[in-house]
């Protein structure tokens, strides 16, 4: 993917662009609002990572506002040290698609970028989802693994749906908390892990191929592909 990073802190920008390149993306970097806005309107990007507080007169939200007014639909992830719920709401209202607070884990950023690029491609009118031999009927709210029907509780269904919609990409605990439960804080106990293992029990138990797996230091991924042997992270 081609990603624009608008970030004034040199070290942070280097950390982000280096990590993105290692993950196979190409990046452009702008270190102030003026350059950021110029690049954002003159080039085509798959995702824009936007810092909020930038040197000069143009801050991140102003750029987002300008892009949205020009009907530019590029997904934008706001990366900011302003972490209040209010600030977050302000960022999303301005037209940002996702909001990540500094400091952050790089895995979280990567997972969210994947999620953003996926979101655009997704067809809202989809009625069924599929990963390997796992099938989800979104209208009837039914799940099958091969020929076996799986009984899921509503929240488990929502959890599985979110994972499958992001099949093949890492989904972090925070993303699950935010999108499945709408919780914007970190519980101290590993409650999400327990939900995942319960779900795994239902879909992967007694199956030869495990679909739902844990990605160390990052989160979870549902995928029909077998995990890479080395360097899985």
């Amino acid at each position: 993917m081609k990603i624009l990073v608008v970030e004034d802190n040199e070290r942070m920008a280097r950390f982000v662009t280096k990590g993105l390149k290692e993950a196979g993306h190409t990046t452009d970097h702008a270190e102030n609002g003026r350059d950021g806005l110029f690049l954002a309107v003159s080039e085509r990007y798959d995702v824009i990572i936007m810092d909020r507080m930038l040197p000069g007169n143009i801050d991140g939200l102003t750029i987002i506002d300008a892009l949205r007014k020009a009907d530019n639909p590029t997904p934008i992830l706001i990366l900011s040290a302003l972490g209040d719920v209010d600030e977050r709401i302000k960022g999303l209202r301005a037209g940002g698609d996702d909001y990540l607070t500094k400091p952050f884990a790089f895995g979280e950023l990567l997972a969210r970028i994947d999620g953003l690029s996926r979101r655009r491609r997704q067809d809202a009118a989809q009625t069924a989802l599929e990963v390997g031999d796992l099938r989800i009927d979104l209208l009837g709210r039914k799940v099958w693994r091969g020929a076996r029907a799986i009984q899921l509780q509503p929240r488990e269904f929502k959890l599985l749906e979110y994972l499958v919609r992001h099949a093949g990409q890492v989904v972090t605990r925070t993303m699950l908390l935010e999108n499945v439960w709408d919780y914007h804080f970190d519980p101290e106990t590993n409650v999400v892990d327990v939900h995942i293992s319960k779900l795994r029990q239902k879909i992967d138990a007694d199956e030869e191929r495990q679909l739902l797996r844990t990605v160390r230091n990052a989160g979870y991924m549902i995928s029909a592909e077998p995990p890479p042997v080395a360097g899985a992270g």
Partner: protein
Amino acid sequence: MTRVIRSSAVTLATGYVLLAFTALVLFAAPLLYAWQETIKDFRFEILQEDSQRLVHVFDLRGAAGLKAFIDERVGMQIAGERMLLLSDAAGRPLAGNLPAWPQSIPAHAGSYTLPVTLDGRHTMVAMVLATLPGGCRLLVGRDVDRFAPIERRFWYGLAGAVAVLTVAGLIGALLIRRALLARVQSTQQTVAAIMRGDLSHRLKVRSSGDELDTLAQTINRLLEQIEQLVHGIANVSNSIAHDLRTPLAELRSRLEELSLTRPPLQETFAEIDAAVADVDGVIRIFNALLRLAEIDAGLRRSNFVETDLAELVAKAVEFYLPAAELKGLSLCLRDHGPTGARCDAVLLAQAINNLIDNALKFVAPGGHIELEVARLAQGLVAVTVADDGPGIPEADRPRAAQRFFRGDASRGTPGVGLGLSLVEAIARLHGGSLELADNHPGLIARMIIERGAAAAAAPEQQRSGSVVEPVT
């Protein structure tokens, strides 16, 4: 500031004096005018009558008769201030108390008010002139200046009133200025003391309850809030300094050791991972503290929306149920149906989750956790989390909600000791409190909040408990 007060008090007083003066003039001027006109009319009427009577005497008795009549009157001193003069056609005086026709008197008949010199004395005379048959002329007049003293007295009175008004106004202005200055100066001194850093000072409030007192009371309330906020910030700073130092020291020693010993690569990576986890821990404390400070500052009231508390609790229970089952605990909810409240849903969800989180941590396998949402009197609602775990010893309960307090039972469990203080702060933001009580055995944590606008609306029908009947 002094100059402003002075000028404002004096301007005010001057304004009032001018206003009173204008009112006085508006009152006096028409009066004076009417008075003068009436006197004048009345005077000419009398002179006219007199003149006609004399003309009548002339008609009856002729010039000689009239002369005798006038002489008689002058002799009797009836005339007094009255002036009478009868002259022949050539203007020579025949009778009367004037030695000659005064100069500057017009020749034809009519009514006049003219300056006349009599015995070397200048005076104003109102007169009626009549021409008699045969060319004789008659003058009947009256000295107007005799009224001047009365008129002068009127002006003196007016001037006196104006003087009194001015003096009273100026004295009033000075008094107001002194009173204002005294109070403003005391306020100024108090504020200066506060600006020097002593927030305990308050403005003096007198018992009079006037506008300045109301203002002083409002400012005092403002000062109280500022003091609380400043103390809150100081507390948070202290807590941060105190409790971030430990994990930061650990992190530092870990990294320093790594740099000094340079262990094999595999071990180095493990140490780096551990260091990142340390940093995450620091960040978590940091976030919790920021959230607490934000709540304490009361900045989040703008996010209050109508929310069903029962739904929030049910969702939290559902969220924690698998974790509870995994630990062998029962987690259940006494459902009494929807319970609306006007609140910050994000914060309340966090508070409820913190309470369940706490219970999950401390209750031993086989234990029970029970939640309940119950409406109380006076527009309050309580979210109760009751467990049969170790509880909190009575001596520790008042301190349990303090920042970074960790009881004996919490040793060896994860957490930084901010959970209950967060719940307490959230309850306080919602006009309520956090109560901790003994469950014989175990802990009852009861978060009470105001229902806000929802309480004013018609109360929804509470379903009877689907698990057990409500206790309250």
